[in-house]
């Protein structure tokens, strides 16, 4: 493989699907040094599969992936933290590396990194099993950063992190020199860190936007407004053409049920009529039946009127 210089990772015409479900439909992109990309899309649209293809954990159906020789992935997902909990916090990190290098060539030691992420010197020497859930997750994140990755992928990193940790993470990432790919539902986090978005629209469609999330959202709102305007115009037009039949949902519900009710009442009415036709009927039964018949007729009438009213709407 030839050296790809500033290019870190090249993806050409990548296709991936699971049966009917299209994830990537000829995806092309070359990740460049120091790029920061945010990935947006609904649940189940294939963001995690995409990340797995980038990191080689999953194979694409077709296409070509060129990986830079020096690529070193860091991949932080929601998966659980597999680590020997009897070890001390600081040793866990020191076993990975003594220090990492920031964008300004500054070296940050394991202990400094821990301190930045609010592990006091005392906490650094405690055993992992004594940490709380949130602290373990923070440590998990640090083990990924400590690997000195030049291609860092964070898949929903903000769940279970508190505001201060989030702020610390953002501060760290703003000084991070490698390639950064983020999947997050935290709009603030994305806005702060990236001005380049891949928007997974579903069925293999991926839009590429060079803007922050908030700018993207504003564009979307504008688009929606335009769309609604057109829809509104069309609606107005069709209103003029024909008096529109419009029921509110409540009325629709009532409308559907009235027919059922009328059918039931009609049924009862028929039965009574048959009873009344019987010449051997006793007086009491006849009085009751004809009284009820009268009620039924009024009821059916009023329900039919309401039905007509709704029907003509």
């Amino acid at each position: 493989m030839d050296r790809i210089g500033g290019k870190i990772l090249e993806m050409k015409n990548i296709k991936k699907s699971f049966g009917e479900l299209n994830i990537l439909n000829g995806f092309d992109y070359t990740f460049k040094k120091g790029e920061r990309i945010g990935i947006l899309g609904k649940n189940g649209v294939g963001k995690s599969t995409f990340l797995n293809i980038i990191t080689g954990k999953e194979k694409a159906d077709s296409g070509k992936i060129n990986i830079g020789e020096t690529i070193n992935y860091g991949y932080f997902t929601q998966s659980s933290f597999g680590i020997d909990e009897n070890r001390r916090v600081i040793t866990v990190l020191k076993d990975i590396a003594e220090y990492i290098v920031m964008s300004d060539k500054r070296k940050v030691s394991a202990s400094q990194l821990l301190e930045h992420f609010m592990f006091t010197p005392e906490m650094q020497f405690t055993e992992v099993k004594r940490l709380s859930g949130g602290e373990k997750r923070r440590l998990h994140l640090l083990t990924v950063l400590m690997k000195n990755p030049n291609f860092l992928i964070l898949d929903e990193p903000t769940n279970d992190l508190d505001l201060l940790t989030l702020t610390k993470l953002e501060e760290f990432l703003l000084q991070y020199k490698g390639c950064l790919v983020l999947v997050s539902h935290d709009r603030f986090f994305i806005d702060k860190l990236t001005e380049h978005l891949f928007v997974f629209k579903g069925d293999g469609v991926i839009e590429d936007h060079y803007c922050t999330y908030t700018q993207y959202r504003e564009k979307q709102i504008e688009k929606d407004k335009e769309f609604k305007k057109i829809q509104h115009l069309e609606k107005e037009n069709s209103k003029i053409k024909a008096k529109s039949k419009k029921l509110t949902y409540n009325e629709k519900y009532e409308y559907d049920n009235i027919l059922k009710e009328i059918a039931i009442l009609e049924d009862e009415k028929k039965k009574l009529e048959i009873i009344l036709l019987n010449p051997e009927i006793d007086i009491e039964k006849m009085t009751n039946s004809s009284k009820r018949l009268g009620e039924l007729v009024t009821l059916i009438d009023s329900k039919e009127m309401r039905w007509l009213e709704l029907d003509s709407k």
Partner: protein
Amino acid sequence: MNLLAVENLGKNFGERILFEGLSFGLSQGNKVALIANNGAGKSSLMKIIAGLDSADEGDVVFRNECRVSYLQQDAIFDNNMTINKLIESAHNKISLLVSDYENAVEAHSKHNSKQTQKNLEILTSKMEQENAWDYERRSKQILSKFNIKDFNQKVGNLSGGQKKRLSLALLILENADILLLDEPTNHLDISMIEWLEKYLQQQKITLLMVTHDRYFLERVCNNIIELEGGNLYHHKGNYAYFLEKRTEREINFDVEVSKAQKLMKKELEWIKRQPKARGTKSKARIDNFE
């Protein structure tokens, strides 16, 4: 009108004091975010207020007849129930009325007696009064908003994210006066977060929530309570205002300018540089201190 009063609340974990002497209230229409670092006791405090945990000291008092709904961080359901059953069993007077009405229609079509007829008429007028005709539509609409489509599946088959969404949808259908929400945006995708954000903005409810979603917090809440070092700080404003006050407080304490402070200042500067990133409410705040 005060709906909730928390008085002198304290909780210990073994020997460790989680918090003590906490007092605050919620007035009608207050939308309050509770901010604290991990381990400061946010979730415990929420559980105590919701009545699922007891305090070691102090009281939680709700106004009479106030209906409260609580969204836990991890939803707990009976895994054998179907979603349909769960909707029906949700404690909700409208859902009960709808199922009564449906039973009455069925009974009347089967037995067709005076009694069933009368019953149906009474329930019909009740449905009218409660404006319940669209309950079914509303519930299915909200559930589909949260991407829950197969109502016959068992709750046990849902993923953690789906359960969270289901509990949020059920909570909205309960239509309570006070909502207690613990990390409502976790496991939601952005479009759902934005829907929920708009919903909570528009509803005239009283709200206490724990969240680390800063835009959500900024746009929904008009008050912030900060729990730090066992103390409560009240901020009558949103996130930008909170950052500003917090920076001020730290300067007032005349402590050495720590890294954390600088960080908060940076965050404040950043948020000030992004006027478009916020809703209209906060603009007033920015104006206030410029």
